[in-house]
């Protein structure tokens, strides 16, 4: 049917993440949208490095298909770093949300109006 199903699904995850960030009026749901968004981008990056009939780029003893056509290892390295940075972003965001809840008593960003005049 479709040549490769990875790219539309990655863009779909990106769209769902942006929808959650823009349309939900609850801070924790916005953070969840952030997580889905970044995972969609990671899926897209890893799918770019695929080769037809490729094998994993790890040497094992004996027979393997590595010599034929290995999959590109460079996008996987960048995604490995990006996943760990995503953890730190979500952890910091959630701890700031705890503080906001203590101060204002609500999780709705429309009702937090301290900076407005």
């Amino acid at each position, binding site marked *: 049917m*479709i040549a490769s199903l990875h790219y539309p699904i990655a863009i779909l995850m990106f769209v769902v993440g942006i929808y959650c960030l823009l349309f939900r009026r609850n801070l924790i749901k916005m953070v969840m949208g952030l997580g889905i968004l970044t995972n969609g981008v990671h899926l897209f990056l890893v799918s770019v*490095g*695929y080769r037809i009939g490729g094998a994993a780029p790890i040497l094992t003893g004996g027979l393997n298909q590595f010599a*034929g*056509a290995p999959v590109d*290892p460079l996008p996987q390295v960048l995604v*490995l770093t990006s996943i*760990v940075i995503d953890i730190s972003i979500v952890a*910091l965001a959630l701890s700031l949300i705890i503080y906001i809840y203590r101060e204002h008593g609500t999780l709705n960003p429309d009702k937090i109006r301290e900076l407005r005049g």
Partner: protein
Amino acid sequence: MKDRDKVASVLVTAFAILALFLIVNGYVGGELVSFGNYPEREATSDTFENYAVAMEYYENNQKEMVKDFDITVKGIESSDFMKNRPEEFGRQAISRYILKKELFVIEGENVLPLVLDLNARSVSDQLEGYFEEENKQLEDSEVSILEIDQKWKIDSQNTDYILERENDSIKVSSYKFAEDTGAANSITAILWDYRGYDTLGEATVIFVAVAAIAALFRSSKEVDDDE
């Protein structure tokens, strides 16, 4: 509607249209969805004397060049820029440089007996002789047959060698990352050896995040001043 809702709905519809376009394109069989699936291309058959001649040739045929920028330059002493570069460069240079690197070619009348030895999974003295000329060691090696059409792999101590047969010669290549670092996992070798600075920066990111969160939730009872 408020302005924010208008902007949001425009963005969401734009991305939805992009996703639909990609799906339809893949159904009709367009190239956009399957651009990651082309097989690993080999270098073109043009060989140039040095870098200047190659650039001149490709400047004249610039329209075809943008898509297939793979050239092979004979020798690497053309310029200082090329001195530490691999012999093939192009869009897939980094992965090919690390993953498979051609060493030398065995030609001559001795190819057939070597082929029979390799099919019987043994390393003969002749083969070791060829390797010693290029300063590579073959102690305690094992031969494994990769595919049916004459490809062999030799597991030796420091790296693995791949031998491919082409009519009357055998092409020997090796894995560069295994020779440089000694790791069997190419991704770990890239993370800690070729890109070690990036991993150091990421460790700093984790450290700063943990320090910030530990500082945010410190109770005020812990800070006490001594009299």
